[in-house]
């Protein structure tokens, strides 16, 4: 029986500056599943995410389930303005994504109540990461592209982020994540591992 995929990557190859980054990668991302991209530094994990999101040019096929028109992306650079406060940041993205609910629940989930009027420039690395995940929630995208989502975070924050990803998967979403660490938080049957050399 063939399952309906969220994302199908077939023979994906990418070349940058006359150098082959990866060659003929194939994998499928199904609802409630997570695909981990393993590889050393500089092996092209971020490049793969950017190819999937159609930012970089590639050869091969990237098929996305009909009806999905955007990706949720969390990368190395958090995509935050230093001058914005936590509140103005959330208000801005809530309006962009037409997020109907109040973002108060998101603030509480990430324990950011105390920092609501604090400018982003004064936040720690982990708090900035939490904010970029807060934006991801408001985006309501089925497919999440996560570039090293846990790197540089403490145990408590890692747990919050992993729980959030688990909730996203349980709602029928999928995630494509790169990570140095071997994460064993998710159900083994729901995890696919793709190795880039």
């Amino acid at each position, binding site marked *: 029986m063939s399952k309906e995929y969220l994302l199908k990557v077939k023979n994906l190859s990418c070349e940058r500056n006359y150098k082959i980054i990866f060659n003929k990668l194939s994998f499928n991302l199904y609802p409630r599943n997570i695909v981990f991209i393993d590889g050393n530094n500089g092996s092209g994990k971020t490049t793969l995410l950017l190819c999937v*999101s159609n*930012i*970089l*040019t590639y050869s091969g096929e990237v098929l996305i389930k009909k009806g999905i*028109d*955007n*990706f949720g*992306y969390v*990368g*190395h*650079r*958090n*995509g*935050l*303005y*230093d*001058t*914005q406060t936590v509140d*103005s940041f959330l208000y*801005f993205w809530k*309006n*962009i*994504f037409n997020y109907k609910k109040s973002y108060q629940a998101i603030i509480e989930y990430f324990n950011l109540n105390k920092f609501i009027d604090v400018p982003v420039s004064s936040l720690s690395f982990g708090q900035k990461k939490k904010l970029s995940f807060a*934006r991801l929630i408001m*985006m309501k995208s089925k497919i999440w*592209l996560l570039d090293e989502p846990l790197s540089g975070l403490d145990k408590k924050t890692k747990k919050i982020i992993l729980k959030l990803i688990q909730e996203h998967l349980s709602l029928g979403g999928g995630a494509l994540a790169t990570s140095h660490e071997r994460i064993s938080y998710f159900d083994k049957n729901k995890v696919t591992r793709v190795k880039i050399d």
Partner: protein
Amino acid sequence: MIKLFFLFLLKDFKNYLLDSNKSWFAISFFLLCLLIFPLTYGSSVDLLKKTAIASIWICALFSNLISLESLFKEDYQNGVLLQYRINNIPFFIIVMTKCISHWVFTSLPIIFFSPIFLIFLSGSSNDAMGLFFSLLFGTPLFSLVGMPIAALTLGASARGPLLIFLSIPFFLPIIIFGVLGVNSFNNGSYSEYYLLCAILSISIVILPYITIKILWESLK
């Protein structure tokens, strides 16, 4: 779409107001440049009077050049531009709101206070109206023409000098028509103004699209 436009415009205005490097720096630089002319001419008031309009235009050009560098820099470096691209947010809105806010915070104060600057440089008060309109039609071109160049130099290491060297040849016709326009304004000839308006109309249509293409390429 309109809601999105105003949302981005408000965000950019706030960003300019809160980031002192962006707006106040350009205006301060303009005032500082302006101060140099009377100091260097000394007692030659006649010379100062003759060059008053050109001096104001040159100062406006320099303050625009200074602030152009930061037009897309922050968005590019902190990854917001990539977020916009991945989430299919129309880049036309992003580019236009950036251009408007850049003009509002670097050129609009200069336009409004240009009669005062003219008096400061011993210029003729008859030229005040002409200068006001020449700046009004000319300075948006600084922002519009500078936009694709600012996008083009995003990844470059020596961004500042490169931006200045690439921009000045494109800014020269604007300055020439702007200064000539003021001189002929009192004689009832408005040809330079028409020309500036024509360039402005074409630039508003074409340059944002060129900027969008360059920004997309810069993300690759």
